[in-house]
């Protein structure tokens, strides 16, 4: 019963214990022991969760972490755009330089453009981390409601699986970690296999 309210479990344990009377069989004694242990476990879990100050996690730590990550994306975007401004300025100077220097400058600027694409990849990776943090926030909130609060509070909403509406959305996972990602050569081979 993974979704059973712990208060209900505790109450059920008490009711079962209260209903036992007279001589007990070996099985009943064993069951009694198990129920007592279960009751102690529930009480211990409640006290440990209360000691965690989980409200801090949802109210302070996770919002702070997501805000910091948003700021990282914003600052890297600003810095990247400044770099691009400078590159575009350098490209305008190219026409005023001797061909040999103009070519060297062109190659250097191209390399900077290529390197600046890091901002896109970084942004996508941070978006994945923020999504993961939001899932953690939701799970912590669910656990808090189940174990750390009174019965008067509403039970957590059942988790609804979000079904991607298109194949494009379903396959949109963002960048892979370098160890798991396919290279351009891998992709070229795969595409060639269709010919």
């Amino acid at each position, binding site marked *: 019963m993974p979704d059973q309210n712990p208060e209900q479990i505790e109450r059920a344990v008490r009711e079962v214990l209260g209903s036992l009377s007279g001589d007990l069989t070996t099985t009943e004694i064993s069951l009694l022991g198990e129920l007592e242990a279960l009751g102690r476990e529930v009480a211990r879990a409640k006290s440990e969760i209360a000691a965690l100050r989980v409200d801090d996690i949802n109210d302070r730590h996770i919002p702070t972490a997501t805000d910091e990550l948003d700021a990282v994306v914003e600052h890297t*975007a600003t810095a*990247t*755009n400044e770099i*691009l401004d400078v*590159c*575009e300025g350098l*490209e305008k100077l190219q026409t005023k330089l001797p061909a040999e220097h103009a070519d060297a400058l*062109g190659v250097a600027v*191209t390399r900077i*453009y*290529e390197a*600046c*694409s*890091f*901002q*896109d*990849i970084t*942004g*996508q990776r941070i978006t994945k981390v923020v999504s993961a943090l939001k899932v953690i926030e939701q799970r912590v909130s669910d656990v808090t409601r189940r174990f750390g609060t009174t019965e008067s509070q509403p039970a957590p909403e059942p988790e609804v699986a979000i079904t991607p509406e*298109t*194949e*494009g*959305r379903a*396959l*949109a*996972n*963002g*960048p*892979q970690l370098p160890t798991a*990602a*396919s*290279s*351009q050569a*891998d*992709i070229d081979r*795969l*595409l060639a296999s*269709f010919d």
Partner: protein
Amino acid sequence: MAIDKNMNVLIVDDYKTMLRIIRNLLKQLEFDNVEEATDGAEALAKLRAGNFGLVISDWNMEPMTGLDLLKEVRADSRLKNLPFIMITAESKTENVVAAKQAGVSNYIVKPFNAETLKEKIEKVLVHA
């Protein structure tokens, strides 16, 4: 076959910085007529309204992804033969296979270099 560098090119990406990088790289390749869109839906509207010779699109965008844009393009009688390059961080085999089955002309994985972009554009346009 010579490539017409005066053609209109549509680049699609939800990261403005990436649009700027691709635009600048295309300029170095002498493609000066470049338009931008920040998601598939905006791109589709521009494609239907305009006359483009090449689309270079990201995958992961809201509300319409690059793959969904590609499917719309291939389903459109006027646009179905339009060269379409996917340029994305989505590098899983299943993504490449899905894009190929949907009719992608070529596929570039991010981060990419200018030489790869040049090579794929030439390959796609020569065979168009």
